[in-house]
């Protein structure tokens, strides 16, 4: 396996050439949204400049090109995540819409009062609130797999928690702690209990080789903009079997086979779930993002992130000792490159405000995971997250910015 040439990768992201506040831009917020390589930006511009047309209806050349762009991207995404067939890849607005589709289309049709939905305490709000709504609307019961102090799931009572459940829905990787969850074990526990397994793969697909068939899940949701692609496009993957058994979510044009004054019949997969004009340029961009990541090699991406996470954990601990607490699993191989931390008694918002003066982009807050914040016993954390274009110099810049914040608030 080849190693990632980070210096070369950095040059492929135009935004990283930008200066902010008189210094270089140090981007450490890729768990929030990733930056985009030039090839993605160029492909989207080229699409608009040369092939822009609506899809699936024109009989002219550029409409065929637009359709080929959209469907070609679908095929690339399907291959990238190990899907059985491109029809199992539905384009949505983002991962949030994908998870809402599961809860509101599959859930409303298949759940009723008293049915249990099992979540984990480390979920993003996108995998909590749609289920809360089903609790309010249908009376489904929510159960929670607890999280241990070092950021792992506590699976002691897993069998009891999933017993009689209809849905087990969980993140493959925590957006706050970087914890990699035991996806296959959770899927198998779900299926053993007769529940469907829904995986929020938003933080997994950009960073690790993903194989939805090996997982054995029923649904997986993720988003384009965290994996070098544009905003405005997300993916819901589902098995053909479960998608066939799911009623449409949004309805209108594109998703129908026939409409009369009496009613409608739905189109086949995947278009049954894609009402209205889809995000065509965004799909083209996402397809090229997939090409780009495959070119880097997902094994190389993972190896780079494990090494850089190890460097970050080591250097922050050496430099700041007990003043810094990095939450989540201590071993780099058990986690992704997401470093949520608290420093001394400084509020994360104050920390990241000082970071900004140094060009260091880090998110502060609850990261859309308030139940997890409560488990950790903090109101907020600062979160630095690593990707293909980050190197040790970026981690050093973060450490310098932390030191600057400590000095600023010490006087």
């Amino acid at each position, binding site marked *: 396996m080849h190693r990632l040439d980070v210096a070369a990768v950095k040059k492929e992201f135009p935004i990283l050439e930008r200066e902010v506040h008189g210094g270089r831009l140090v981007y450490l917020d890729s768990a929030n949204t990733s930056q985009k390589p030039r090839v993605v930006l160029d492909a989207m511009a080229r699409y608009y400049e040369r092939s822009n047309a609506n899809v699936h209806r024109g009989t002219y050349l550029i409409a065929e090109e637009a359709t080929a762009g959209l469907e070609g991207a679908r095929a690339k995404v399907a291959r990238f995540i190990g899907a059985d067939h491109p029809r199992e890849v539905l384009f949505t607005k983002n991962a949030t819409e994908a998870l809402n589709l599961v809860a509101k289309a599959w859930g409303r049709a298949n759940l009723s009062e008293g049915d249990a939905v099992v979540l984990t305490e480390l979920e993003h709000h996108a995998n909590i609130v749609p289920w809360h709504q089903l609790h309010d609307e249908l009376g489904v019961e929510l159960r929670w797999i607890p999280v241990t102090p070092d950021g792992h799931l506590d699976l002691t009572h897993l069998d009891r928690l999933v017993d009689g459940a209809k849905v087990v829905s969980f993140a493959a990787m925590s957006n706050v702690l970087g914890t990699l969850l035991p996806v296959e074990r959770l899927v198998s526990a779900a299926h053993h209990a007769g529940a469907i397994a829904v995986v929020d793969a938003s933080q997994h697909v950009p960073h690790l080789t993903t194989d939805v068939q090996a997982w054995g899940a029923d649904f997986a949701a993720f988003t384009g903009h965290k994996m070098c692609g544009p905003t405005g496009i997300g993916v819901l993957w589902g098995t053909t079997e479960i998608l066939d058994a799911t009623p449409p979510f949004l309805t209108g044009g594109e998703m129908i086979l026939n409409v009369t004054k009496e009613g409608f019949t739905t189109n086949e997969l995947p278009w049954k779930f894609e009402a209205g004009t889809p995000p065509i340029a965004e799909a083209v961009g996402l397809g090229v993002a997939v090409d780009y990541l495959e070119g880097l090699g997902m094994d190389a991406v993972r190896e780079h992130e494990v090494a850089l996470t190890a460097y970050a954990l080591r250097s922050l601990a050496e430099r700041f000792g007990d003043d810094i607490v990095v939450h989540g699993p201590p071993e780099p191989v058990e986690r992704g490159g997401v470093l949520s931390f608290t420093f001394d008694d400084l509020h994360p*918002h104050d920390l990241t*405000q000082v970071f900004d*003066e140094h060009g260091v982009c880090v998110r*502060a*807050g*609850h990261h859309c995971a308030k139940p997890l914040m409560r488990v950790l016993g903090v*109101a907020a954390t600062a979160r630095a997250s690593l990707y293909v274009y980050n190197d040790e110099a970026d981690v050093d810049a973060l450490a310098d910015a932390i030191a600057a914040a400590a000095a600023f608030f010490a006087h």
Partner: protein
Amino acid sequence: MPGLEDLYREIILDHYRSPRNRGELSSPPATRVEGFNPLCGDEIVVYVDVKDGAVDDIRIGGQGCSISQSSASMMSAAVKGKTLAEVQALTRAFKGMMSIHEHALDGEDADDPSEVDSEVKLGDLEALRGVVKFPVRIKCATLSWNTLLQALGEPTASE
């Protein structure tokens, strides 16, 4: 570009390190209201005891960044003993100062907002003026004030 010293004035850091009126009041008789900043997770609890149309006592609980905590601390000191009408005028003046003006977004000094009652003296609260140069932090500064308004049964949607 606005510098950190525009945001973190010494008096702000003083209120952050030594918050005034920190604690709880028994409720009832005091009114207890929680406020949340959905962006950053700051949570604030305002306990306010109104007697004879004036703020007899006030306490602040919860946790948050230096801006939200110092703003809450200064607020508690500023409204204690004031009549409800005075509190309203003060709140209006403070929130007026915190509203974003186009030139503030350009990084220039914010002028006094015209709608603010010039009779109202903001005192220490003036130190928070620099917050408007950091638009995402404005909600940190106004959190405790909106929570106070809620506790006093006033509408808060005047931002």
